C-alpha cells in the first residue's frame, strides 16, 4: 500500500471509529466506493480497535514481573531412592539442581537434604575431584554450618550431595522483627562459621541470606559451604556464572572480583558477609551497579548512591563504617579476616573503638573516656601514638568511600575573573579567599584551604574528579565581575556525590559593603549545603561592617602577595598592608596580615627579635580592634611559642584560633608542631591529620608531616612521606631539603647529599640545605666540602639572618665543640628552630651536657609536657 494510501486509511479509520458501530458500514460504503482493498484495511483495523484495552500494558507488566515459578505440587521423585536415601519430598529448585527432602533408609530418624544435580559430572577426573572436595567439606563441623554428610553419583551418573537437613526460617525473614543488637549477634554467629572454614582453607563463595537458615532455637546455620566450588568445573574461572545472559542476573551478594571472574579468596566471603549484613540491617540489597561483568563498567547512578546512603543513614555511624569496610571494592581494603570483621562488631556492641573507624586519635580518646571514666594515663597515650605512627598517617586520613558522607565538606574553586582585565585577578582571588574564610568560620563545615584549591585555577577538570582529589562532597565555583564600585559574584554549587549542580545564585553589591556581602554569600552557601548556622555564625553573617573600598582593595593585594611567599613578595605584602592601614587605621584584618607576613619572614630573612616583635605588636593590635579575628590569635600563638617560649600561653591562643575558625589548616599544622615540640606527640599527630584533611594537596602540610615523623624518630615513615612530596613536585625546595635532612637521621649520607644538592640547585641561597649538606659532608669525611659550606653560611650571615641552630647542626656534624655556643646564640636571638631542641635526634650527642639541659629549660620545653 502506498504511503498516501496509508494516510487515507488513517483518515477513514478515525472517522469511522468516531461513529457508532451501526453507522460505520454506511460511511465506509460511501468513502471507499469500489476500493475493496482500502475498505478491508480499514475494517480489519476497526476490528482490532479495542479502546481501554490493557493488552500492551499487560505485556510490559508481565516482563517486568514474571510470576515466580509455581512449585510443583507433587514431586515426581517422591519415593525414589538415591543411594541409601529415600526421597520424601521436594524442598526447592535451584540453578544447579533440585533439593529434596529425604531420609536414610537405615536410620529414619535422621532427615537429610539431598541436592541432586541436573548435569552429569562428566569425566572420571571430574568425579574424582568431586569426591576429594566432598571429603574436605564433610570435615567441616561447626554448630553454625549445615554439615555435608555424604555424596555420590546416581546410577545415571548425576552427582548428588547429602546435607544436614535444617528446618528454619530464612535469615532475613527471621531477623525482620529483631532489634539491631540481636541481628548483629546472629550475624556474628555466621561469621564464626565462616572464619572456622577459612582457617581450614575453605571459602564458601556463595554467602547470601537464602543460604542462611535460622532454626527455631535461634541458631543460624550456613548452608552449601564450598558447594559453589565443588560444582565448578575443573579449571573454571571461579564459580560464577559468566554467560552473557546471566550477566543480567548478577548475584546480589557476590563481590566485584567474583563478578569479574577473578580468583575467589577469603576477601570474597568477607564482601558477601558485608552484603548480607547490609541487607540484614537496612532491608535493602547493596546496589552493586558499579561492578559489572562486562569490561565496560557502568557507574552507580546517583539515585542508587543516594538510596544506599539513605539506608545507611539510619545506621550507627560506626556500624556504617564497619559495613562499608567489609564492602570495599578493593579486596585488600576490606577486613583481613572474618574474625577481624566480627571482632569489630563485638567492639561496637561493647562500645569500644572500632577498627573501621578512621583512626582519629581524638575519637579513640573519646571512646576510651566514654567507656571508662578514668584519667587517661601516659602509657595509653604512648601506645596509641605508636599505633598511629605505625599505621602511617596518610593512610589514616585517606578517604574511605562513604565515610565522609555525613561530613559536610566544601571546596571553593578559585573564582573566575570576568572583568577581562588580568590586573583584576587579585580581586577574584581575594573574593575566593574571603569566601573560603567566611565559610571556614561555620562550624560543622569542612572547608578546603586555598592552597589546595588554587591548583584548579583555570583548570578545566571535571568537577567530580576535583571533588574526589580534595575529598569533598560539595564544590563551589563561580565568577566575579567587578565594575567600579560594584561587584557581582555568581556562584554555583555542585554536589559531587550526586554528580549534579544543586544550586546557583548571583549576588550583587557595593564594594563598600563587601564584608557583609561576603557573609551573605557564605550564609547562602551554608544554607544550601544544609549546615546549620549557630547563633554566633548567624550574628556574624548578619553584622554589617563596612570598610573603605580602597583599604579593602589594598588589603586584597596584600593577601595575594603574602600567598606567594618569596621574600620580595612578603615585603611587598607588608607594604600593602601598611598602606591599607594608612587608609583605614582600625582595619583588624590588615594588622593580622601584617603579623602573618612578619612571622613568615622571621628566621627566613629577618632576625626573630626584629620580626617577631613586630608580628606580636600587629597581632595584638588586630585583637584589640576585633578579638574575633582567628588568624590574629594564631599569629599570637606562634609568637608566644616560637619566640617567647611561653608554650602554655601559645596553647591557649591556638585553641582560641581554632575555636573561631576550625578550618585553618595552617593553624592546625602549627598547633600540631607545638604539641610535638613539647612532647605531646599524640595530640600533635591529630592536629597534623586535621591539617592534612583541610589541605590535602598542600606540600607544606605534607612536608610538616614528614618533619614530624623524623622528629618523633619514625624514620622510614618520614622518608616515605617526604619522598612522596618530592615525587609529586620535584621543584618544591622544602621537599628536597627535609627529605635530605631525614636521610641524615638514618645515616644515609649519600642519599642526603643528593637531595640537598637538588635543593641547592633550586635555590643556592637557602641556608637550611646548606647547613644539612655541610653536616652530611662532614659525616662522610669530606671535611673540606663541609668547611667550604660553613664559610659560605657565615658569609651569608653578614647580609641576612641565619639561624644559630643551623650552625650548631654543622658543628655537631664536624664534632666541633662550638655547637652549644651556637645554640646559645640562637637562644639569644630567640630562634624558632629551638623548638625542636628537645626531640631532635641530631643533638643526641649533646644531651648529657649541663649547658644543653639548661637550654632546654630556657626554651620552656622541660616543663611543657604537663600541658
Amino acid at each position, binding site marked *: 500500500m502506498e504511503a498516501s494510501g496509508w494516510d487515507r486509511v488513517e483518515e477513514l479509520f478515525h472517522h469511522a471509529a468516531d461513529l457508532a458501530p451501526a453507522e460505520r458500514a454506511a460511511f465506509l460504503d460511501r468513502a471507499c466506493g469500489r476500493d475493496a482493498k482500502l475498505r478491508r484495511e480499514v475494517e480489519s483495523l476497526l476490528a482490532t480497535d479495542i479502546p481501554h484495552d490493557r493488552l500492551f500494558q499487560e505485556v510490559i507488566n508481565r516482563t517486568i514481573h514474571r510470576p515466580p515459578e509455581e512449585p510443583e505440587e507433587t514431586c515426581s521423585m517422591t519415593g525414589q531412592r538415591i543411594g541409601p536415601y529415600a526421597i520424601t519430598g521436594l524442598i526447592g529448585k535451584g540453578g544447579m539442581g533440585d533439593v529434596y527432602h529425604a531420609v536414610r533408609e537405615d536410620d529414619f530418624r535422621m532427615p537429610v537434604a539431598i541436592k541432586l544435580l541436573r548435569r552429569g559430572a562428566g569425566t572420571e577426573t571430574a568425579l574424582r575431584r568431586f569426591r576429594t572436595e566432598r571429603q574436605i567439606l564433610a570435615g567441616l563441623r561447626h554448630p553454625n554450618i549445615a554439615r555435608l554428610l555424604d555424596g555420590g553419583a546416581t546410577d545415571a551418573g548425576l552427582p548428588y550431595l547429602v546435607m544436614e537437613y535444617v528446618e528454619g526460617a530464612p535469615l532475613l525473614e527471621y531477623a525482620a522483627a529483631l532489634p539491631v543488637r540481636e541481628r548483629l549477634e546472629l550475624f556474628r554467629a555466621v561469621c564464626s562459621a565462616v572464619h572456622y572454614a577459612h582457617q581450614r582453607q575453605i571459602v564458601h563463595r556463595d554467602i547470601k541470606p537464602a543460604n542462611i537458615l535460622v532454626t527455631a532455637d535461634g541458631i543460624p546455620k550456613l548452608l552449601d559451604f564450598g558447594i559453589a566450588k565443588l560444582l565448578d568445573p575443573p579449571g573454571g574461572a571461579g564459580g560464577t556464572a559468566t554467560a552473557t545472559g546471566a550477566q543480567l542476573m548478577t548475584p546480589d551478594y557476590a563481590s566485584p572480583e567474583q563478578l569479574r571472574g577473578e580468583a575467589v579468596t577469603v576477601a570474597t566471603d568477607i564482601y558477601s558477609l558485608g552484603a548480607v549484613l547490609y541487607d540484614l540491617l537496612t532491608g535493602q540489597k547493596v546496589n552493586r551497579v558499579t561492578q559489572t561483568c562486562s569490561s565496560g563498567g557502568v557507574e552507580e547512578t*546517583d539515585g542508587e548512591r543516594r538510596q544506599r546512603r539513605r539506608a545507611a543513614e539510619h545506621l550507627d555511624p560506626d556500624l556504617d563504617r564497619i559495613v562499608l569496610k567489609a564492602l570495599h571494592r578493593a579486596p585488600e581494603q576490606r577486613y583481613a579476616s572474618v574474625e577481624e570483621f566480627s571482632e569489630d562488631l563485638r567492639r561496637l556492641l561493647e562500645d569500644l573503638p572500632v577498627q573501621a573507624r578512621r583512626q582519629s586519635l581524638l575519637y579513640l580518646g573519646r571512646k576510651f573516656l566514654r567507656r571508662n571514666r578514668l584519667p587517661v594515663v601516659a602509657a595509653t597515650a604512648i601506645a596509641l601514638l605508636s599505633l598511629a605512627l605505625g599505621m602511617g598517617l596518610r593512610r589514616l586520613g585517606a578517604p574511605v568511600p562513604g565515610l565522609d558522607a555525613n561530613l559536610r565538606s566544601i571546596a571553593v574553586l578559585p573564582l573566575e575573573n570576568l572583568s577581562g582585565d588580568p590586573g583584576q585577578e587579585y580581586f577574584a582571588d581575594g573574593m575566593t579567599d574571603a569566601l573560603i574564610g567566611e565559610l571556614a568560620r561555620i562550624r560543622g563545615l569542612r572547608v578546603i584551604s586555598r592552597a589546595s584549591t588554587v591548583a584548579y585555577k583555570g583548570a578545566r577538570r571535571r568537577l567530580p574528579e576535583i571533588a574526589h582529589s580534595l575529598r569533598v562532597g560539595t564544590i563551589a565555583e563561580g565568577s566575579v565581575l567587578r565594575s567600579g564600585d560594584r561587584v557581582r559574584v555568581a556562584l554555583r554549587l555542585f554536589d559531587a556525590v550526586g554528580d549534579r549542580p544543586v544550586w546557583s545564585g548571583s549576588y550583587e553589591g557595593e564594594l563598600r559593603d563587601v564584608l557583609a556581602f561576603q557573609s551573605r554569600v557564605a550564609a547562602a552557601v551554608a544554607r544550601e549545603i544544609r549546615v546549620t548556622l549557630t547563633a554566633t555564625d548567624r550574628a556574624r553573617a548578619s553584622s554589617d561592617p563596612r570598610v573603605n573600598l580602597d583599604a579593602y582593595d589594598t588589603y586584597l593585594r596584600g593577601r595575594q602577595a603574602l600567598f606567594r611567599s618569596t621574600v620580595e613578595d612578603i615585603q611587598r605584602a607588608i607594604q600593602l598592608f601598611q598602606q591599607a592601614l594608612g587608609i583605614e587605621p582600625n582595619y583588624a584584618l590588615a594588622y593580622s596580615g601584617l603579623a602573618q607576613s612578619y612571622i613568615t619572614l622571621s628566621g627566613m630573612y629577618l632576625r626573630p627579635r626584629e620580626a617577631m616583635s613586630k608580628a606580636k605588636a600587629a597581632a595584638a593590635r588586630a585583637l584589640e580592634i576585633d578579638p574575633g579575628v582567628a588568624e590574629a590569635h594564631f599569629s599570637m600563638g606562634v609568637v608566644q611559642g616560637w619566640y617567647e617560649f611561653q608554650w602554655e600561653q601559645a596553647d591557649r591562643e591556638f585553641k582560641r584560633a581554632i575555636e573561631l575558625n576550625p578550618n585553618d589548616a595552617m593553624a592546625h599544622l602549627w598547633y600540631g608542631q607545638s604539641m610535638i615540640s613539647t612532647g605531646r606527640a599524640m595530640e600533635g599527630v591529630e592536629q597534623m591529620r586535621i591539617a592534612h584533611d583541610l589541605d590535602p594537596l598542600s606540600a607544606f602540610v605534607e612536608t610538616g608531616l614528614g618533619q614530624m615523623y623524623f622528629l618523633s624518630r619514625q624514620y622510614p615513615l618520614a622518608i616515605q612521606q617526604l619522598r612522596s612530596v618530592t615525587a609529586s613536585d620535584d621543584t618544591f625546595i622544602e621537599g628536597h631539603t627535609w627529605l635530605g635532612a631525614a636521610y641524615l637521621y638514618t645515616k644515609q649520607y649519600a642519599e642526603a647529599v643528593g637531595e640537598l644538592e637538588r635543593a641547592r640547585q633550586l635555590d643556592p641561597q637557602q641556608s637550611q640545605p646548606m647547613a644539612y649538606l655541610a653536616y652530611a659532608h662532614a659525616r662522610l669525611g669530606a671535611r673540606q666540602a663541609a668547611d667550604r659550606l660553613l664559610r659560605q653560611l657565615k658569609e651569608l650571615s653578614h647580609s641576612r639572618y641565619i639561624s644559630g641552630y643551623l650552625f650548631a647542626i654543622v658543628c655537631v656534624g664536624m664534632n666541633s665543640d662550638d655547637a652549644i655556643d651556637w645554640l646559645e646564640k640562637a637562644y639569644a636571638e630567640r630562634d624558632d628552630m629551638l623548638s625542636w631542641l628537645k626531640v631532635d635526634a641530631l643533638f643526641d650527642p649533646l644531651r648529657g651536657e649541663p649547658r644543653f639541659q639548661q637550654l632546654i629549660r630556657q626554651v620552656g620545653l622541660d616543663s611543657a609536657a604537663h600541658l
Partner: protein
Amino acid sequence: MTRPPSVTRLLIEWSQGNHSALDQLTPHVYRELHALARRSLLRGRPNQTLQPTALINELYLRLIEQTQTIEWESRSHFFGIAARLMRNVLVDYSRAQSAAKRGGAAVAVTIEQAEPLAFDRTPDVLELDEALSRLAERDQRKANVIELRYFGGMSREEIAGALDLTVPTVKRDLRLGEAWLRRHLAGGG
C-alpha cells in the same frame, strides 16, 4: 586511572551512534529496573500487581536526574532514548529468560517461530517488539508514540510535549497504532 563511563556519557554516546555504548548501558538499566521491581515487591504485598508505569516513571526520574547537567538536544530526544532503552532492556531480559528456560540455548525468537496469536494468549515483549518494528516501517511516528506510551510509561500529554504533537493527535496515533499492532499480533498482517 580511567573511570568507567557514566550512564549519562553512555546515553550521549549511544545517541550519537555508538552501539557499544548501548551494550554497556543495557545491563545497567536492567539492574536498575529490576532492583526497582524487586524493591516494590519487597515493600510488602507480594501478590499485588506491579504498576509498570510507576516503575518506569521512577526509573525515568533517576535517569533524568542523572542527566540534568547536560543539555539535551531536546526533551523528545531524551525521552526517545529512555523509552528505547527500556524496550531494549525488556527485550533482552525476556530473551534471557526464554534462553534460561530452554537450558541455555539462547536463540532470538523470530517471527517465523512465533505461534500465531490468538487473543486468549498474551503476546510476550519479544513479539510486541517485533510488531512495533513492523509498524515503524509503516508509520514511524505511531511506533514512537507507542514506544513512549508503553516502554516509556508516559502520559499522552507528556508524549505530546516530547514529540511536539497535539494531545488529540497522540490519542489518534495511539488508537490506530494499537489497532494495527493488535491486528499484526493476531496474525492479521
